[in-house]
């Protein structure tokens, strides 16, 4: 957060509507991106994004402003996604079955729903599927670090602290995850 954001957090801690709305505007897309890529299920990602912000509203008084609001926020989101993955694996649920439905329960249109460039949309869908397959094939711990780094913009040290692992381990996992991602797309994009 920027230097002028202390006041925003103070106001959010008093649960002022405007301040909370600004936090949602600022962080909801990235929180959703992280959870969606972690769970690979659209409706789950939407529910958990909402739950993340509900928890922020409920517990923001407990947040001690040490300039690491993003770490605090993304820790909540990552923990929710992790809990969901744990429950899903216990239930044996398949995340892919849940994909394609929105928060209102309705089946979603393809990305953006524009439908004017079928070739491009098809390419985007193929790429999204390939990405999902690649992320799904990664060990959860590797995937988590890669996604946290991308969406939360925390430093690797902050991510290592958040996950309570040594920095070297975090870097090694990120390296493995990136290598897989690059390999998956390099192979597929070859003529």
């Amino acid at each position, binding site marked *: 957060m920027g230097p002028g954001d202390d006041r925003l957090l103070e106001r959010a801690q008093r*649960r*002022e*509507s405007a301040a*909370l*709305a600004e936090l*949602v*505007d600022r962080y*909801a*897309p990235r929180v*959703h*991106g992280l959870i*969606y*890529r972690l769970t690979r299920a659209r409706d789950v990602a*939407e529910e958990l*994004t*909402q739950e993340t*912000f*509900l928890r*922020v*509203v*409920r517990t923001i008084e407990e947040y001690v402003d040490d300039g690491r609001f993003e770490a605090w926020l993304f820790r909540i989101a990552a923990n929710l996604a992790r809990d969901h993955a744990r429950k899903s694996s216990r239930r044996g649920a398949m995340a892919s079955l849940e994909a394609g439905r929105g*928060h209102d329960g309705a089946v979603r249109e393809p*990305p*953006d729903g524009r439908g004017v460039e079928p070739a491009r949309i098809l390419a985007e869908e193929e*790429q999204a599927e390939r*990405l999902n397959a690649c992320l799904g094939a990664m060990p959860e711990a590797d995937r988590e670090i*890669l*996604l946290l*780094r*991308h*969406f939360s913009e925390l430093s*690797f040290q902050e991510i290592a602290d958040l996950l309570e692992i040594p*920095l*070297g381990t975090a*870097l090694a996992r*990120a*390296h493995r995850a*990136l290598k897989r*991602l*690059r390999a998956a*797309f390099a192979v597929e994009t070859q003529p």
Partner: protein
Amino acid sequence: MNHTLDATEAALRRELAEIGPLLDLPASSDLTEWVKGAALREATLIRRRKLRERLVRPWIGVAAALLLLAVWKAPLSPAPLAPAAPSDPDAYLEGWQAAADLSGERVTMLFDDARPSGGVESSETTAPEDTLDGFEKSLDFFEQAFSSDTAG
């Protein structure tokens, strides 16, 4: 060792900056509005609950004090006014009625004595919920006025 970690981290940052955009999702304003609505509703509920707690908390103390006072005063009551040996049932009933009236007056006096003077006036026709809402609105108004003063 630190140098190696720094170099690895820098390389990873560069690599992620190149390939990371693959992970991005198109922003959905519907989703943001949906989340915002839920968050603001939750905030309103929490604010209301806290306000109720703030309003009710002092009165719990008063009620407890009144109860203690009533218990403490009870043994100091004079002897019963009813005849000791009722020969006539009507006289016995009248005596009991008088005792009940006196007791009622004493309880009223106790409440009057214990009630803080200059407190919030309450109307019998106003539901407690309405009173709370009105009070909350006035606080919201004050908060808004205060925010605009400090912002300007």
